[in-house]
């Protein structure tokens, strides 16, 4: 006989889990006790807030492709995970989250630390379970891992009443499962691939739009081969960065609200738009009626519900991006002459590149981002929060490989970047991990500095410090007549002293002339560093599609 808590540990070993992120509490004490007693070959990372655990698990999932595992107690433990669960659902990251629950006998009585986890998490998970009997636990865990990583990945919650963790069950419990209602389509329909190939053979102005689906499906090599074989121009979404080499001459850069002029005009003027694994988010499309108005739209997606959701699609292809690209590579397509189209795109690319103005003394955040790129030789895993620093990273740090860009796209979560960097470093211990964070977002989860110290993780935290909620400030400047309502952070802490109080090396730089030297020091240092970079406060992210405008109506394209 074996307890539910021990069964849980056994199942995690069975799933070859190497890291779990969590925080103990009353309802999960039996599980933590089992963890203490077991010789399980995985490590537990103690965050300082459950939000830290779950964003770390997201970072881990993004760089490893494996599910991130989270363990939290009932009630407040579970509710502290809500932001991260929603974030993972929006960005299709696989997570398996275990929450403690009060004992079955008192569920529904408003017991101490009870919250309706099933009710709360149903709209923000791919699936969720409450365990009713200890013998179900192994099957449920197997199912949860399967659901989290297959098809379109997403978070799965398993809510475990305390008595279930304590009760015993025969050791070899049922692990087999059958989910007849969940059979994701991996292989695309050949007929639809044929239609796509045919459309490509007739297209004079084709463009590829690539999203996170390419990265998730590990389809980067196939995408590169496909784009190069037919010399197709490629643009990407924010989360698609790294799916196709940003330094390739076929890359037009990112599209959307802060995308490049070449990418957005490419979408505006194309006659065939092939979307691979992106979901036509409104920050990408701008006003729908101006999005690819003259194009035939083909959409490859593993989630059929994404096809036709926002943009009507002439050629739907349901399936895995890798399989679809393989099938397309195997179709012999005769392409018409694209010379004029390519020249036009190239003209846009060279005439209207991303730009910024450098001031002489204060650090330009875009230039800072470029220095991080240059000095990390483009090899770093970069995590960010949401806001200006995120857009500058997306614009000025060209990602050539997948799984090196960890950012909160769909939900736009402040406080994501730093804990995500912890998870990324644990998932990729030999890689350089840089957390590019804003001074606002960093203060939402900076308690996780304790984890850096605990584990001596060599994460380089670079605070792009403009003493403001920069993107809010920019919008107030542009759309609210410079009424900076509650967006200026003049009472920031001394981040150097703060880092030092956690036993972490803290540095500050406020002159451009010193940046290179300080960054050299930061990257050479074998251990965690917090670098407070004082940048120009008044800097804005350009170019931009103003809210409610079409993709062709960019502002700030040139100086």
């Amino acid at each position, binding site marked *: 006989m074996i307890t539910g808590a021990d069964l849980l540990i056994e199942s995690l070993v069975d799933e070859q889990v190497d890291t779990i992120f969590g925080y103990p509490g009353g309802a999960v004490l039996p599980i933590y006790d089992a963890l203490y007693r077991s010789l399980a070959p995985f490590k537990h990372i103690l965050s300082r807030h459950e939000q830290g655990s779950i964003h770390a698990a997201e970072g881990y999932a993004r760089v490893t492709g494996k599910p991130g595992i989270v363990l939290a107690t009932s009630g407040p433990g579970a509710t502290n995970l809500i932001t991260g669960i929603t974030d993972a659902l929006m960005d299709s990251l696989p997570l398996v989250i275990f929450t403690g629950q009060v004992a079955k006998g008192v569920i529904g009585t408003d017991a101490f630390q009870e919250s309706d986890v*099933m009710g709360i998490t149903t*709209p923000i998970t791919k*699936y*969720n379970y*409450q365990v009713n009997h200890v013998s179900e636990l192994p099957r449920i865990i197997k199912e949860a891992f399967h659901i989290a990583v297959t098809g379109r990945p997403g978070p799965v919650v398993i809510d475990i009443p305390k008595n279930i963790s304590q009760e015993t069950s025969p050791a070899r419990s049922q692990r087999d499962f059958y989910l007849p*209602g*969940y059979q994701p389509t991996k292989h695309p329909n050949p007929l639809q691939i044929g239609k796509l190939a045919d459309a490509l053979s007739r297209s004079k102005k084709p463009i590829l739009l690539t999203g996170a689906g390419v990265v998730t499906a590990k389809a980067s090599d196939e995408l590169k081969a496909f784009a190069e074989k037919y010399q197709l121009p490629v643009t990407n979404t924010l989360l698609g960065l790294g799916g196709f080499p940003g330094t390739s001459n076929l890359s037009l850069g990112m599209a959307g609200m802060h995308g490049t002029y070449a990418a957005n005009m490419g979408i505006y003027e194309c006659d065939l738009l092939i979307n691979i694994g992106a979901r036509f988010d409104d920050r990408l499309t701008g006003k729908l009626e101006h999005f690819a108005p003259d194009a035939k739209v083909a959409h490859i997606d593993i*989630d059929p*519900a994404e096809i036709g*959701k926002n943009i009507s699609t002439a050629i739907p292809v349901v399936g895995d991006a890798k399989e679809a690209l393989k099938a397309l590579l195997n179709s012999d397509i005769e392409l018409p002459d694209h010379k004029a189209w390519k020249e036009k795109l190239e003209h846009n690319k060279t005439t209207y590149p991303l730009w910024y103005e450098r001031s002489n003394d204060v650090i330009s955040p875009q230039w800072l981002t470029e220095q991080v790129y240059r000095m990390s030789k483009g090899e770093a895993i970069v995590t960010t929060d949401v806001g200006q620093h995120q857009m500058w990273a997306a614009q000025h740090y060209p990602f050539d490989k997948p799984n090196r860009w960890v950012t909160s796209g769909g939900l736009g979560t402040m406080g994501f970047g730093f804990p995500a960097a912890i998870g990324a470093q644990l998932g990729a211990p030999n890689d350089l991990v840089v957390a590019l964070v804003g001074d606002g977002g960093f203060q939402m989860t900076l308690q996780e500095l304790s984890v850096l110290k605990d584990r001596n993780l060599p994460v380089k935290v670079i605070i792009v410090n403009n003493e403001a909620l920069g993107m809010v400030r920019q919008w107030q400047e542009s759309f609210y007549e410079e009424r900076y309502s509650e967006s200026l952070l003049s009472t920031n802490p001394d981040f150097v002293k703060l880092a030092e109080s956690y036993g972490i090396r803290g540095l500050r730089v406020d002159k451009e002339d010193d940046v290179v030297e300080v960054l050299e020091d930061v990257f050479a240092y074998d251990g965690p560093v917090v670098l407070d970079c004082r940048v120009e406060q008044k800097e804005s992210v350009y170019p931009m599609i103003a809210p409610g405008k079409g993709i062709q109506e960019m502002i700030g394209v040139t100086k």
Partner: protein
Amino acid sequence: MKRIITATVQNRSGVLNRITGMLNKRQFNIDSITVGNSETEGIAKMTFVVEVSDPQKLEQLTKQLNKQIDILKVSDITDKAMVARELALIRVGGNGQSRTEIQGVIAPFRASVIDLSKDSLTVQVTGKPDKVDALITLLRPYGIKELTKTGVTAFLRGQQPQQVTEINSFSV
């Protein structure tokens, strides 16, 4: 446009909540939902009557339903040959003279009186929703004291005509 959509679902805990939650989150306007066990143990059938504004929204609705892990099959049967039924219980005020009249009104609808009290009677009617609504309209002048409806439950007829001649014959 009103659509009748049926779903075959696994009878797991929270499945109704999951589905209504999804419909609510995605702003679909639900007229009625009925749920009950099917011929197979562990499998339930649901019938939704949903108001959707256009074909694109309808497609999104069926896709989102299909995406639910507990849903095995989704069909929009509005334009097919099908049987659709609804049950209504109507308590109408009446005594003496009006009782006889009410009996006369409900007879062509094959409705029946299932309860009587001193000054009211309860009518049970089953049928297509428009028939049920027609009877309710006719009974209204007698004073409806209480009314409850089950919502539509439906499935396809055993045999589908080669060409569906009665497209949109079902007017909900």
